C-alpha cells in the first residue's frame, strides 16, 4: 500500500470511529420533542426571606466528632543496623460534642450559642469535660442598616490557609466579649469593634478597639483593619486579593507597633482550583523573630477521587528557612462507611534536632521524624 493509500485508510478509520462515537454520545435534544409547556406563575409572592430571619421556636442542632488512631514511627532517623532505635508507637482517641441553639423571634433579633464538651480517655480521665460556652451572642439590626453582634463570638480577619491565623489580628475574639457594629451598605462593609479580652477591666482605656473597612476597587479586594489596646499596642492589617486567570492571589501585611517594638508580618499566597484538584501556596515572613530572617514557605495540593477511585490524596510541604527544618506529609483519605472517614498518612519532619518543625511545630505528640498514621474519624451533624 502506498503512503497516500495508508493515509486515506487511517483518515477513513478515524472518521468512522468519530461518527460511531458521536452516535453513542449523550444528547439533550430529545428533551425538546415533548417538553412540559411554559407556565404562568400566578401564586402570591413567596417570602423566601422569612425562613431565614424568623422562627417560631428555638432551633437546636448538634455535632459529634470522635477520632481514633495509631501512629508508629521513629523519633530519630531510622538506621538499618538497629531499626528499633527511636521507634515508638502511640494510640489516640478523642471525642467532641457540641450542642447549638438558635432563636430568631424577630427579623431584627437573633440569639445564638453553643456549648461544647470533649473527652480524651487516653490522656487523662475517661470522662467528659464539663460543658463550656463556645459562643454566645445576640444579633440586632438597628434602624434597618446597622448590624450589631454582641457577646462571645468568633471573627476571622486575614486570608492565610496554610499558615492559619498568622495575620488574623482578631483571632482571640472568641475568648473575649465583643460588641461589633457594622454598616454593610457603606463601601463593601465597615465595622467597628470594642472588645474586652482581659480580666478586671475598669476603664475604657483597657478596652481593645478595632475597625475594618472592605472595598473592591477595579476587581481587587482591599481590606484595611486596625486593632489597638493600651498594653498590646497597635496592629494594622492591609489585605489585598485579586483573581487573575482563575488564580486567587493574596497578600496580607500586619504592622505591629508598641513602646518597645515595630515589626511587620507578611503573608503572600495563591490558590487555584480545578474540578478535582486544589492547589495552595503560601509564603510567610515574621518580623517579630529576632534577626529578621524568619521566612517560611508552604505548598499543599489536594486531589479528589484519584484515578477514578473513592480515594482523596493530600500532599503538603512546609519549610522554615530560618533553621532549615520542615515537614512533608502525604495522606490518603476515603469514606468506607456513612459518617466515617479513614486516613492513612506518612508525615516526615526534617531538620536539625530541636528545630522548629522537628520539635516546636511538630504535630506528632512524640515528635517523631518519620511515622505511619492510621486514623478513623466519625463526624455527624444533626
Amino acid at each position, binding site marked *: 500500500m502506498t503512503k497516500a493509500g495508508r493515509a486515506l485508510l487511517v483518515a477513513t478509520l478515524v472518521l468512522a470511529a468519530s461518527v460511531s*462515537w458521536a452516535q*453513542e*454520545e*449523550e444528547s*439533550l*435534544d*430529545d*428533551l*425538546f*420533542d*415533548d*417538553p*412540559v*409547556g*411554559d*407556565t*404562568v*406563575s400566578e*401564586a402570591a*409572592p*413567596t*417570602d*423566601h*426571606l422569612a*425562613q*431565614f*430571619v424568623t422562627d417560631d421556636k428555638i*432551633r437546636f*442542632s448538634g455535632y459529634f466528632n470522635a477520632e481514633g488512631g495509631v501512629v508508629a514511627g521513629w523519633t530519630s532517623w531510622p538506621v538499618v543496623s538497629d531499626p528499633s532505635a527511636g521507634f515508638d508507637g502511640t494510640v489516640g482517641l478523642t471525642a467532641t460534642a457540641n450542642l447549638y441553639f*438558635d432563636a430568631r423571634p424577630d427579623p431584627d433579633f*437573633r440569639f445564638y450559642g453553643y456549648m461544647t464538651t470533649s473527652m480524651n480517655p487516653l490522656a487523662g480521665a475517661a470522662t467528659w469535660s464539663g460543658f463550656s460556652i463556645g459562643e454566645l451572642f445576640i*444579633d440586632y*439590626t438597628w434602624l*434597618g*442598616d446597622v*448590624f450589631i453582634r454582641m457577646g462571645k463570638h*468568633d*471573627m*476571622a480577619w486575614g*486570608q492565610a490557609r496554610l499558615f492559619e491565623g498568622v495575620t488574623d489580628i482578631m483571632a482571640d475574639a472568641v475568648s473575649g466579649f465583643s460588641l461589633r457594629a*457594622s454598616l*454593610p*451598605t457603606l463601601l*463593601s*462593609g465597615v465595622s467597628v469593634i470594642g472588645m474586652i479580652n482581659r480580666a478586671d477591666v475598669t476603664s475604657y482605656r483597657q478596652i481593645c478597639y478595632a475597625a475594618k473597612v*472592605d472595598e*473592591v476597587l477595579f*476587581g481587587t*479586594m482591599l481590606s484595611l483593619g486596625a486593632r489597638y489596646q493600651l498594653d498590646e499596642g497597635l496592629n494594622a492589617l492591609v489585605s489585598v*486579593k485579586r*483573581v487573575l486567570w*482563575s488564580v*486567587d492571589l493574596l497578600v496580607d501585611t500586619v504592622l505591629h507597633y508598641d513602646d518597645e517594638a515595630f515589626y511587620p508580618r507578611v503573608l503572600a499566597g495563591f490558590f487555584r*482550583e480545578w*474540578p478535582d484538584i486544589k492547589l495552595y501556596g503560601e509564603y510567610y515572613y515574621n518580623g517579630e523573630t529576632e534577626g529578621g530572617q524568619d521566612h517560611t514557605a508552604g505548598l499543599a495540593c489536594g486531589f479528589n477521587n484519584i484515578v477514578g477511585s473513592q480515594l482523596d490524596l493530600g500532599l503538603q510541604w512546609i519549610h522554615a528557612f530560618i533553621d532549615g527544618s520542615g515537614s512533608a506529609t502525604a495522606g490518603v483519605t476515603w469514606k468506607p462507611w456513612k459518617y466515617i472517614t479513614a486516613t492513612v498518612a506518612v508525615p516526615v519532619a526534617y531538620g536539625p534536632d530541636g528545630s522548629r518543625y522537628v520539635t516546636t511545630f511538630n504535630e506528632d505528640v512524640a515528635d517523631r521524624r518519620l511515622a505511619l498514621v492510621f486514623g478513623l474519624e466519625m463526624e455527624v*451533624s444533626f
Partner: protein
Amino acid sequence: MKRIRLTIALSLALAALGSISAQGTDYAELLRRVDATVTFEGADLSAEYTIVKRDPGGATSTTVATMFRRDATGQFLILILEPVIDKGKGYLKEGDNLWLYDPVDRVFTFTSAKERFQNSSFRNSDFNRSNFSKDYTPVSGTRERLGKFDCTVLELRATNDSVSFPRMRIWVTDDYLVRKMEDYSLSGQLMRTSAIPSYQKVGNKWVAAGMVILDHLKTKNVGGKVEYERTTVTIARPSLAALPDSVYTKEYLEKVAR
C-alpha cells in the same frame, strides 16, 4: 499602510454585517430582546434552586439553595439549604465580585465569579442576569428546528474576557426565550451544553423552570456510551417580593447563615 487600513475597514464592515442576516434580521436586536425577556430591572427575584449533579456513570448529589437577585444592580445572594454539611454557606455577588461565606470558620473569601457552583456544571455566573447583548456579538445566524420548537441559532463571540465562555451557540425561539446553549472554548472545543425546555412566567418576565446541563469535559464510557456529567436544575417558587438593600450584604449573609 493603505493595505492595513483597508483590512481594518473590511474587518469592521464584516463584523457589522455579521449582526444582520441575509433576511434582514437584526441579530443584535434579537439578543437585546432575549435579555429583556428574562431580566427583572424593576424588581427583586427570589426562588428556590434544586441542583442535582450526576457524575458520569456514577453517583448523584443534590444541592438546594435559595437565591435572591436584583438585576438593576447586578447583585445576587445565594444561601445553601442542603446538603447538611454545606448548610449556611453563602454566595454574595456585587458587580463582577463574588464573596463566599463559610459559616463554620466565619470566613469570607473573595473569588472569581466564573467557578463551578458546588462543584456542579452549573456555574456561579449562571445565577447572573442575562447579558448576552453586552457580553457577546452575534457573528451569524440560521433557522433550525429543535424538537417542537422553531429556533434562530446564533453564533456568538465574547466582547470581553469577564464571561465564562468566549464562544457560544444559542437556540432562541420566536418568543425570545433561549432553549439551548452550547458553550465553547476559544479554540472551538465544546465545553458545555445546556437545555431549557420550559419556562415559567413571573409578572411580565420569564424564568427558566428547569434546565439540564452536560459538561463535556467530564466524561466516562459507560457500556459503550459516552456519558457526561449531567446537572439538572429545577427553579421553584419564583417570587418578585421586594427585598431590602441590606439583603445584598456580607453582614446579612453572616446573620442568616445557620
